[in-house]
């Protein structure tokens, strides 16, 4: 069986889409080989902006992972560019020396960013915005530098600038024209855009021509033609792209601005094709995915049918763009500029910040600009595409969203042929059909089946709305699933565990139809927590589903060693303990001894196999500095010594710490007790903070001193220590039962509101008593993990033993 060999140069968006289209039609006919210069599987370049803006991670934007290549038996070489093509012998060579012959060859080499040839452009800190590596260098630069300058106020430049703002840099945007996005917007819309972005924190320098990049090794600033200059630690050039055609030229293909192709994407050489940004069709080079995907489809049809006359061929595309900066809606399509022979319809609402313009020529819509409200974008695009005569159409039908009665939504009124997903060319009819025929119930499934919303994601709201309309359910309200292994939410999983009486992690996954049999590092710890919460007395903790810290009861450090933090109730210690810690530190050569922020002593840099001995020698209990549990109760000096103290904060702190130590919670819990409002124990930023006032204790909850700094809110004021304990029990138990795994109290309270918590733990005396009882039950199971391990040979062997094998000379055994 000799399959036809298809070789693809370029592992990017257009090339891989072409292979997908081929595989869809002919799953088994071809043997594919893909060369990609970047060291990644095929990813969604469009969403680099959202990686930079911090909304996605690199793994979120992968379109096809390595499994996909494997499943389709595609031979993939990443990080290996093709450097030579011999069209006569039908051979290609890669940089690393790999040779492949082909029956058909596809060029999809995309483009390179255009770097202005300015003096100094080669300096460190001058980059483009095109690939994952660029994204990473911006993220890294933001860690040590402050001032970023983006050259280019177009689509890409503004998205980069927004990302840099999110990375907490100061951002200046330099633009040569007199308004932003001059290729997509007229000057009215451009000005509105500038005002909005200035509000977000960007600074603009329009009509400026950069002439020089200053600095020694690394960029320090840039100079303009008007003799002025500004400072810069990072310069991002986003002034345009240049088709990547060098290889094609060397290989003898006909190249103008880009590789010349006909309507079937055929180049001047036989059996050699080009798609994407490296191709020039009827004199036009496209730089957006929608047209490139259309090209990919045509090429796939052509390759699969073999003859040109069966497929209609590519006729060129009408392009439209949106800016992907959150909070700003911009849309532009077709010939949007006013010309002598055009007239326009405009709506300009300066109060609402809305601007809409339709450019009309011979009674046909030929272009449009929308700013502030882009709901009519799809409708307008289809008017442009169809070339419908609009003289008889009412204004309301031109701008459906202006009619103001939002009830029949824009999506509902769209015709079946109208496009919902512009990038992938998916129509409303196709989506509705897929939902009905295949019983789809989530946006993710629609994306899988139809490709709709798979690229820029701009049409996701419309897709969701369509799903809601078709199935009669409110999909937008559908919250996040627990993890990628299931569609179910945390709440739904917990409810099923309770209802069906499930009792093992694996059982939950198989009964609830997990997509991967084994789960992942997100769901397994969560399920383990929920099972323990629901059956505190019967459930046996699944150590395999715990993160290493909680499995070996010590904190893993970056070099793979561990740190040991013994319990010191309320931060109080004594000479004997201190002496013991000192002795242990000496005996085991602990490289760093440190007082922690939680008033304890940390022994850092202990090798794993030594942990049980360290614990044995210390003879102290675990401080749980590693767990999703109560960490510490910090205390201030209090009434015995402090001249302001009104209460005994130390005793109360110790009492609290002793009671709740070892409790499993959705996330770590930190507490503190201060004896007066001076708050020396920082009670205001703890999950539970107690503050002594004359004759009473105030209890604050939901504080956080971490990344999302948040001050705690007053929960109540009580008179006695007993009431303090009861209230903590009711509050923490309610948190344990209601919060999702890995949700800190601060986020939980923000989500559900403090009032709703107060209602349950103060107004409902039956529920309060029940919560306190369930807390007591949970606490009854606590055993100190260090002592347990020190006493169990088996655990020590399984978890801590270090095995070293000496190989005898002469090899093996």
């Amino acid at each position, binding site marked *: 069986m000799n399959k036809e060999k298809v070789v693809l140069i370029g592992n990017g968006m257009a090339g891989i889409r072409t292979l997908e289209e081929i595989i869809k039609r002919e799953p088994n006919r071809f043997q594919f080989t893909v060369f990609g210069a970047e060291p990644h599987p095929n990813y969604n370049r469009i969403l680099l902006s959202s990686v930079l803006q911090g909304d996605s991670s690199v793994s979120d934007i992968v379109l096809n992972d390595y499994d996909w290549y494997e499943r389709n038996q595609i031979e993939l070489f990443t990080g290996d560019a093709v450097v030579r093509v011999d069209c006569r012998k039908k051979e290609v060579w890669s940089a690393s020396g790999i040779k492949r012959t082909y029956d058909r060859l596809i060029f999809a080499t995309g483009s390179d960013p255009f770097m202005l040839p300015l003096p100094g452009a080669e300096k460190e800190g001058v980059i483009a915005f095109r690939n994952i590596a660029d994204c990473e260098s911006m993220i890294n630069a933001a860690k040590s530098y402050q001032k970023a300058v983006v050259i280019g106020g177009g689509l890409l430049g503004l998205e980069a600038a927004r990302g840099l703002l999110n990375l907490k840099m100061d951002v200046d945007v330099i633009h040569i024209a007199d308004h932003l996005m001059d290729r997509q917007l007229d000057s009215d819309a451009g000005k509105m855009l500038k005002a909005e972005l200035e509000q977000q924190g960007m600074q603009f320098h329009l009509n400026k021509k950069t002439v020089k990049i200053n600095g020694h090794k690394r960029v320090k600033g840039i100079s303009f033609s008007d003799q002025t200059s500004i400072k810069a630690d990072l310069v991002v050039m986003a002034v345009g792209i240049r088709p990547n055609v060098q290889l094609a030229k060397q290989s003898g293909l006909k190249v103008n601005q880009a590789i010349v192709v006909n309507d079937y994407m055929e180049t001047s050489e036989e059996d050699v094709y080009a798609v994407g940004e490296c191709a020039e069709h009827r004199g036009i080079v496209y730089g957006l995915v929608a047209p490139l995907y259309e090209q990919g489809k045509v090429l796939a049809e052509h390759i699969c049918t073999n003859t040109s006359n069966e497929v209609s061929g590519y006729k060129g595309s009408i392009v439209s763009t949106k800016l992907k900066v959150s909070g700003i809606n911009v849309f532009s399509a077709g010939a949007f500029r006013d010309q002598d022979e055009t007239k326009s319809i405009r709506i300009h609402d300066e109060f609402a910040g809305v601007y809409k313009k339709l450019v009309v020529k011979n009674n046909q819509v030929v272009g449009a600009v929308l700013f502030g409200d882009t709901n009519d974008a799809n409708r307008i695009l289809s008017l442009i595409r169809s070339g419908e005569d609009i003289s008889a159409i009412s204004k309301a039908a031109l701008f459906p969203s202006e009619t103001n009665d939002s009830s029949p939504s824009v999506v509902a009124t769209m015709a079946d042929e109208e496009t919902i997903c512009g990038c992938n060319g998916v129509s409303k009819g196709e989506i509705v059909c897929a939902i009905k025929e295949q019983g789809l119930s989530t946006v993710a499934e629609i994306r899988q089946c139809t490709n709709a919303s798979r690229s820029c994601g701009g049409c996701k709201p419309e897709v969701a709305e369509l799903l809601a309309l078709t199935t009669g359910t409110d999909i937008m309200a559908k919250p996040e699933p627990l993890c990628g292994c299931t569609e179910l939410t945390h709440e739904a999983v917990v409810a099923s565990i309770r209802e069906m009486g499930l009792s093992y992690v694996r059982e939950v996954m198989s009964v609830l139809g997990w997509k991967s049999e084994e789960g992942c590092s997100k769901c397994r710890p969560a399920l383990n927590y929920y099972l323990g919460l629901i059956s505190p007395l019967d459930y046996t903790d699944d150590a395999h589903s715990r*993160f290493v810290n909680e499995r070996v009861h010590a904190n893993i450090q970056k070099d793979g060693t561990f740190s040991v933090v013994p319990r010191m109730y309320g931060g109080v210690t004594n000479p004997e303990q201190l002496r013991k810690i000192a002795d242990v530190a000496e005996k085991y050569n602990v490289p760093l001894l440190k007082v922690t922020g939680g008033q304890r002593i940390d022994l850092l840099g202990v090798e794993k196999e030594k942990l049980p001995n360290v614990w044995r020698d210390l003879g102290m209990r675990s401080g749980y500095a590693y767990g999703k549990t109560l960490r510490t109760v910090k205390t201030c000096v209090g009434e015995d010594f402090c001249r302001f103290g009104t209460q005994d904060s130390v005793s109360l702190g110790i009492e609290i710490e002793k009671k709740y130590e070892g409790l499993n919670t959705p996330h770590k819990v930190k507490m503190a007790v201060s004896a007066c409002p001076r708050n020396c124990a920082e009670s205001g930023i703890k999950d539970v903070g107690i503050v002594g006032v004359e004759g009473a204790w105030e209890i604050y909850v939901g504080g956080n001193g971490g990344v999302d700094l948040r001050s705690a809110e007053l929960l109540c004021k009580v008179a006695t220590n007993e009431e303090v304990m009861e209230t903590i029990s009711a509050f923490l138990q309610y948190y344990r039962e209601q919060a999702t795994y890995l949700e800190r109290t601060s986020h939980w309270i923000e989500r559900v509101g403090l009032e709703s918590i107060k209602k349950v733990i103060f107004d409902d005396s039956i529920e309060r008593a029940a919560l306190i009882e369930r807390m007591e039950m949970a606490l009854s199971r606590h055993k100190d993990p260090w002592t347990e391990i020190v006493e169990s040979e088996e655990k020590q062997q399984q978890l801590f033993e270090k095995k070293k*094998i000496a*190989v005898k000379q002469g090899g093996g055994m």
Partner: protein
Amino acid sequence: MAFVEAGRKVFVANRNELAVGLGKKVEIEGRELALFMQEDGSVRILDNKCPHKGGPLSEGIVSGNYVYCPLHDWKICMKTGSAQGGDQGNVACFTVEVEGDDIYVFI
């Protein structure tokens, strides 16, 4: 794939030293290996070094054929050694032979 060329055959562990779902660290001539026993009894051996920043894979959460690095949660396939999702990199996998309860690695 990143399979290391087969070399000497070395005994590394007895099967009963391993537990399904828990990695085991073994040092051979200064080189750290991570051993994993699968539910079907097969054994996989990788370099104990995450391709990201060298995290000890033997300490990771094991899910089927994958291990999640304990430092930054990269997902590594134990069959091929390659990082999953958008992450890029490979960890060396070793050829394993199991004779009865004895596990050998070719190193």
